[in-house]
């Protein structure tokens, strides 16, 4: 199966090759890995791999696969396969809130042409300001939230249309679709 980390485009190919008792063989991006897996009472397991041991735990939800490996906690998204809903392809068509918070300021207006790296919005969460930047050249089609509003994680804040360099596509399909 193909996995990517939530919020990160890089994809990984992971396959469970074989299992026999505690012995486990996997393939990660073509590289074969051997490990041992012991179930733990709490529903997690102990992974013994390369002389190390790591406590792991996982939970699949509708949208994501939450896992912990030692103190590191991760959130993966299945790019394909039964548990996944592909999220790729539309990234540059909109700007969504990467976390719940307060939309402090909106730095662009509808119809503005923006360049890659241009600041678009300032969000505040946990008393820290986070600025969201444009990933590429585009034109602001609509602004979907007002300054001062509390926004949920994943809420679409700005929709783009194609960059003005290609006027024929203006107001039509988003770039990268």
């Amino acid at each position, binding site marked *: *199966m193909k*996995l990517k*980390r939530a*919020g*990160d485009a890089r994809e*990984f190919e*992971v*396959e*469970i090759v074989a*299992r026999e*008792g*505690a012995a486990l063989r*996997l393939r*990660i991006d073509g590289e074969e*890995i051997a*490990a041992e*897996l012991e*179930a733990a*009472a*709490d*529903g*997690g*397991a102990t*992974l013994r*791999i390369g002389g190390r041991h*790591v*406590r*792991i*735990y*996982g*939970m*699949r*939800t*509708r949208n994501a*696969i*939450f*896992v*912990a*490996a*030692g*103190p*590191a*906690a*991760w*959130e*993966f998204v299945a790019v394909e*396969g039964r*548990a996944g809903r592909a999220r790729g392809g539309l990234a540059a068509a909109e700007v969504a809130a*990467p*976390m*719940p*918070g*307060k939309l402090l300021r909106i730095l662009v207006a509808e119809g503005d042409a923006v360049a890659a790296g241009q600041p678009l919005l300032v969000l*505040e*969460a*946990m*008393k*820290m300001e*986070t600025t969201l930047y444009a990933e590429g050249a585009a034109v602001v089609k609509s602004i979907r939230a007002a300054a001062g509003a509390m926004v949920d*994680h994943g809420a679409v804040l700005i929709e783009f249309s194609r960059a003005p360099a290609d006027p024929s596509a203006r107001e039509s399909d988003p770039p990268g679709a």
Partner: protein
Amino acid sequence: MKPRKIKRLLIANRGEIALRIIRSARVMGIETVAVYSAADAAAAHVAAADDARPIGAAEPAASYLNIAAILEAAHAAGADAIHPGYGFLSERPEFARAVEQRGIIFIGPPAEVMAALGDKVAARHIAISAGVPVVPGSDAGDLEAARQFAASAGYPILVKAAAGGGGRGMRVVGEAAGLATALEAAAREAQAAFGDGRIFLEKYLARPRHVEVQLLGDQHGTVVALGDRDCSIQRRHQKLIEEAPAPGLEPVLRERMAAAALTLARAAGYRGAGTAEFLVDGDNFYFLEVNARLQVEHPVTELIFGCDLVVEQLRIAMGERVAEPPAARGCAIECRINAEDPAQDFRPATGRVIKLALPAGPGVRVDTQLEAGAEVAPYYDSLIAKLICHGGGREQARARMAAALGEFMLLGVRNTAAFVREIIASEPFARADLSTRFIEEHFPRWSPADRDLHDALIAAALAANGMLGGAAAADGGTNRGASAADGAAAHSPWTTLGEFELWGRR
């Protein structure tokens, strides 16, 4: 000044510190009253208190900063004392004054002392008068004065909020072009965080250490110092890792700094628990500010002195005398776990706790509001847990912290545990090469090691295929006579970790 017995303490705070204060009050036989915002109705500090009162909406301004609502809750609950914790209203003289005016004991210094010391600009003037060295700086808040100071002192320049702490409203300005923007942003953040947008400037030292002295002053004029802490490991001026005592300081420097802290506290008529912060640069130290409250990192001091600083605060408020502390024993380190994604530029993270495993055992303490099912909401500070480890020496404390972080597991809220573990395990930290530039020097752009990513991918593949995870509680069904059969079956994860897929209720 007269002895007053505290019977019922309201804690005007939330999270781990509210829980920690409740625990100490309970040990003293004092009843506790929690207050909570709409986002915190199911929070751990609410469940822990003897009484709990709602004080408003989730936004801090409507609840934890809402003086009127808190005073009303105190009145309704019959509280005779209020502990402000840290952050929120803990350093607002007007809150301390309003509390005392109601005949309620405020756990902290008198309002006027707080006003003088809590204001960094005023505190600098007290320090200068008392002969305590300060970093070259200027309390000029307007752009033109700031430009003049910066030009004369030379860039980089530090922009700081006059009120509050915790690194909020602080900006480093590398060149003249960024000054105006930085002043504006710092003032806005300070206004939002502390309700006070005043700022001042300081020369930015190249590679200083942050060292602070814990103080306790009573109502009878006695002030004592409980050793020092090093809090140099910071990110964006937020402390990440703290330890006591500050390692590798010359005894003479340590004594001079403690003496300076005591001089300052006595000059200001300090009372209660407080902290004098210094920058240490070679053989020199410079006064930074006094935090007129409990610090986040106070547990490292507690572990080496075997004391309870909240108990001391409450005793002082009841008119008892402070005593010279015993000799410190060993070394303690604290790691803060923040709800931030270290792999995505420390962006704040929120969510609900799916699974939590906390370290335990000898020399390990965990202060946290987290529990399974707890919600980490976006309204408040990102600090969600403090791991504190004690050891006979620094190396033992460090090894114990590394082991404790290995036992920590939190699913559902991305956090900094894996990041701080790498710092703790690193060679520069092991040899105590500490400075406030530590993170930018050694961990400038952190991303998880490939090995950790591989472990996580394996876990994800197992979870996706129904071979890992699930709710342990949902497994306890029959709970009877299960031992023999399960004992054998437990050998194989494939038989015990059956299919688990969760679609949630929403």
